[in-house]
Every structure is written in structure tokens, then in C-alpha cells.
């Protein structure tokens, strides 16, 4: 462990704000990257299912 206690870990010397801001933004960007294809896949499946249903009704 490079820090003596948890408060020091949060403080990161004098650079707590910088380090945690960088990691926070990274977490957001990565989470958005993971969420986007999951939501898109769900929307696509619903859309395709609807199209198939409509075609069946028409024929």
C-alpha cells in the first residue's frame, strides 16, 4: 500500500481532485460505451419483431 490510511488515499497528496476527476470521467465514458450497444440491440430486436409481425398480418 502506498498510502497510510484511507483519507490519504482520497487526498492523493495534493492531487486528489485531478486524479479522481480523471477516473470519474473515464468510468462515465466506459459505462456509456458498454450501455450504448446493449440499448441498441434491444431496440433493434423490438423493431425487427414488429416488422415480422406486420408482414405476417399483411400476408
Amino acid at each position, binding site marked *: 500500500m502506498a498510502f497510510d490510511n484511507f483519507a490519504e488515499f482520497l487526498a492523493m497528496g495534493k492531487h486528489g481532485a485531478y*486524479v479522481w476527476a480523471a477516473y470519474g470521467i473515464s468510468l462515465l465514458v466506459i459505462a456509456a460505451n458498454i450501455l*450504448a450497444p*446493449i440499448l441498441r440491440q434491444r431496440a433493434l430486436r423490438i423493431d425487427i419483431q414488429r416488422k415480422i409481425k406486420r408482414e405476417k398480418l399483411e400476408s
Partner: protein
Amino acid sequence: MFATIKRLYHQFGSPRYFYDMTGKMLPWLIAGAVLLIIPGIVWGLAFAPPDYLQGNSYRIMYIHVPAASLAMGAYVMMAVAGVVVLVWRMKMAEMVARSIAPIGASFAFLCLITGAIWGKPTWGTWWVWDARLTSMLILLFLYIGVMALNMAIENAQSAARATAVLSIVGAVNIPIIKYSVEWWNTLHQPASISMTSSSMATEMLIPLLLCIFGFYFLFAVLLIMATRCEILQREQRSNWVRQLVENN
């Protein structure tokens, strides 16, 4: 060896094979990403020693360097996919190239923003117009250009050909980014690690390597997930996609 590569190339050129195969690969790639990134980040944040010059602000490196490496690696991959699109007209390469752009853009953005946050306590400024930073910003703009071009052209195949040309031409920026710290005087420090050597302390280097490899696994996961959406969208008229969607 060559025969195997050729067979794999043709197999993965089929959207259905790609979809099935990557579905099986995904859990392993996710496990790889988690098992590399989480120990890498925890080690880098809490256990690696502070830098004797920069103190603790250097810990931003464990995000910044993997993001930078990935933004450039993804661009090269997009340009290679572009060559395949133009030369062999492979549909699967069109979908992969299209899926890379937003992921690459987000990592280029991440590299720039973490770099700016790291720059403030280290250099005393968020931003300078020097060679490394500017060429990296151009990389982000190239990604955005590719995305805009993809969205502007209705026909997916025409869009893929046009963006392939843009991404191949833009690839000239990649060696400029890489060697900018050697060719020009910049505020940015030169590379501390290469394929064969490292000037970094081992306790700092190992978590960094974990993070870099982990980010590549993460990229594989993100790319596969995005490409699978692209396949569903473009192949929605085919029987196998209809069956797949109907069955669950």
C-alpha cells in the same frame, strides 16, 4: 498457417458466422477485460509507489496511456478494415469499420481529457498547442469526420467506401502522433516503454501493462457488441436473423 488465416478470413466474412462465433467469444473477452483492468487500476491507484517528481498525479497514467494506445490502435484497425472494404468489398469489414469509429472517438476523447487533467498539476496548464497534443486532437477530429460521413450517406455500402478512403488517408496521422515527441520539442514526455525496453520502475510498469492489455480486451468486447448490432440491422431481411429474433 496461410491456409488457416485464409479460412478464418472467409469464415469471419460471413455475418452469420461472425455473429455466432463472437457470441461464444464474448464471455471470455469480458472475463479477460475485468480480470486485467480491475487489478491493474487497484494496483496503480493504491499500491504503486508515488512518482518522485509528480507525486500522485501520475496515477492518471493508468487511464491515459491505455486510452491513447487504444485510440491509435483502433484507428489503424479501422484503416485496415477500410482497405479490405475497398479491395475485397467485404460486407463484414464495412460493419467492423463503421463500429470502430465511435469507440475510437470516445477513447481519443478520454486520452485528451485525462491528459488535460494530468497537465494542469504537472505542467501548470490544461492545454498547449504542441505537436503531440495537436496531432491527438486531429485524431479525434478524424474519428468524428468518419462518423459524420457514415451518417451523411444513406446507402451503407457507399458510406463504407467513402469512409474507407477518409480513414486510409487519415492514417498518416498515426506515425505523426507516435513520433511527434521525437521530431518536435514538446511539453509531452517521450515514451517510457517500448516493445523491448522500459525506463519505468517495475512496480509502476506491471499495473500499466495490465491496464493496457485490459483496455484492448475491453475494446474487443465493445467492438464485438457494436458490430453484432450492425449485423442485426443490416441483415434483418435474412432468414437467420428473423429466426434468431423470433426465438427470444
